[in-house]
């Protein structure tokens, strides 16, 4: 049977993995190629690389790293961060990405989803969204979750899939960093509206959170960063545990 996927996310800046995105003051960094190899050996089902660099020189460093990883590790690689034009799709796909994740770029120009899907296929376009409750409604946020767009996130999701997004990453700002479980209410709302794979992000703190997540049949994958980076949860242990809980996983 098809398995539920466990996906570590690597934020890359200055050619290094920044481990502590959600924790002020933590400057712990690691070599992305080594880390990717480690996760591959540990049973990660895919890897997501976010380019959080600012300058052109650093962007070059990022694509060099991507090429290095993609030449040694043969599981699906998704790249996000700074994807604003179809040229950005070309750039990262040429360097070994399999899927391209769009977020703020698609908010500025929703056409980007269609362009990417038309040129590379729906399976290549991952729509990533930062969502937060505002006055009881789910709002879509831009710029790494810093800016409320006022857009209804549930409608945005449906529109995105209609435009050709082949997978969704749903990141809940409300649960992100809290480590008390995924935002199941939000995830269920989205799962009820679309029929593409949903990757849940934000809130994983322990193994039980993933078991709880996968009791919701509309969710296909769980994405996390810090709990894997700081070895609070080892992916192989997590998968062994999930299998014991009756969740289909690749071991």
């Amino acid at each position: 049977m098809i398995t539920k996927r466990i996906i570590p996310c690597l934020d890359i800046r200055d050619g290094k993995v920044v481990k502590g995105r959600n924790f002020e003051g933590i400057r712990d960094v690691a070599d992305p190629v080594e880390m990717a190899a480690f996760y591959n050996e540990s049973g990660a089902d895919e890897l997501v690389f976010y380019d959080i660099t600012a300058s052109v020189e650093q962007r070059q460093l990022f694509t060099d790293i991507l090429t290095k990883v993609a030449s040694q590790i043969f599981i699906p690689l998704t790249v996000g961060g700074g994807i604003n034009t179809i040229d950005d799709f070309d750039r990262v796909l040429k360097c070994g990405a399999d899927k391209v994740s769009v977020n703020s770029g698609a908010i500025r120009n929703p056409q980007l989803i269609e362009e990417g899907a038309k040129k590379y296929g729906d399976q290549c376009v991952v729509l990533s969204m930062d969502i937060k409750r505002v006055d009881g409604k789910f709002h879509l946020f831009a710029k790494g979750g810093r800016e409320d767009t006022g857009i209804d996130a549930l409608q945005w999701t449906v529109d995105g899939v209609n435009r050709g997004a082949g997978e969704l990453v749903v990141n809940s700002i409300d649960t992100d960093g809290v480590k008390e479980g995924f935002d199941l209410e939000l995830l269920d709302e989205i799962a009820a509206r679309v029929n593409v794979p949903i990757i849940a992000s934000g809130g994983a703190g322990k193994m039980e959170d993933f078991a709880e997540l996968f009791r919701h049949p509309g969710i296909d994958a769980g994405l996390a960063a810090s709990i894997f980076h700081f070895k609070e949860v080892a992916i192989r242990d997590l998968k062994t545990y999930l299998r014991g809980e009756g969740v289909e996983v690749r071991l």
Partner: protein
Amino acid sequence: MIAVIDYGVGNLFSLTASLNYIGADVTVTADKDVLKAADKMILPGVGAFRDAREKLFATGLVDTLYEQVEAGKPLLGICLGMQMLFDKSYEYGEWDGLGLIPGKVRYIETDLKVPQIGWNSISIKEDPLFKYTKDGDFVYYVHSYCATECGQDTIAVSDYHVPITGAVHKGNVWGTQFHPEKSGNVGLGMLRAFNEL
């Protein structure tokens, strides 16, 4: 040398990188003479059937491809490249395939999400392609259409609430619906086995 047929469909980075990784000699080509000189051929492909089929025929390589298969040269089709090996596809219409393996490509009729995206286990028959593969190993799929009516040529099946034809083999032609170049060590093992044929 393995010739990877380049007809402008999909991203060949992972495929060439994985073949390089296992030590195969790889050339990405749209040149008849390179196909003729190759020991083995791979037909990749991602996207829509009709578009890919038109692009493949537009290369003018199809006659050479038939001739080389006829001469016994191993051919591996991957994903859409596999789907093109069959008689017909019913993706947005009805299209003739290459007819190298009997079978028809149809939309996956399942109660699960389509496309199937992710890792699924395979039940395998004994086959030279699976020299390094175990029954129950996991492979990575991304597809909305699937080969049916392949009969005894089916060598791997996955369960997606309906049986999914994972791989086929007839004579010197193989096809995998999943992506060996994205299936970790399991996939690398299959590429190694193909390289060693």
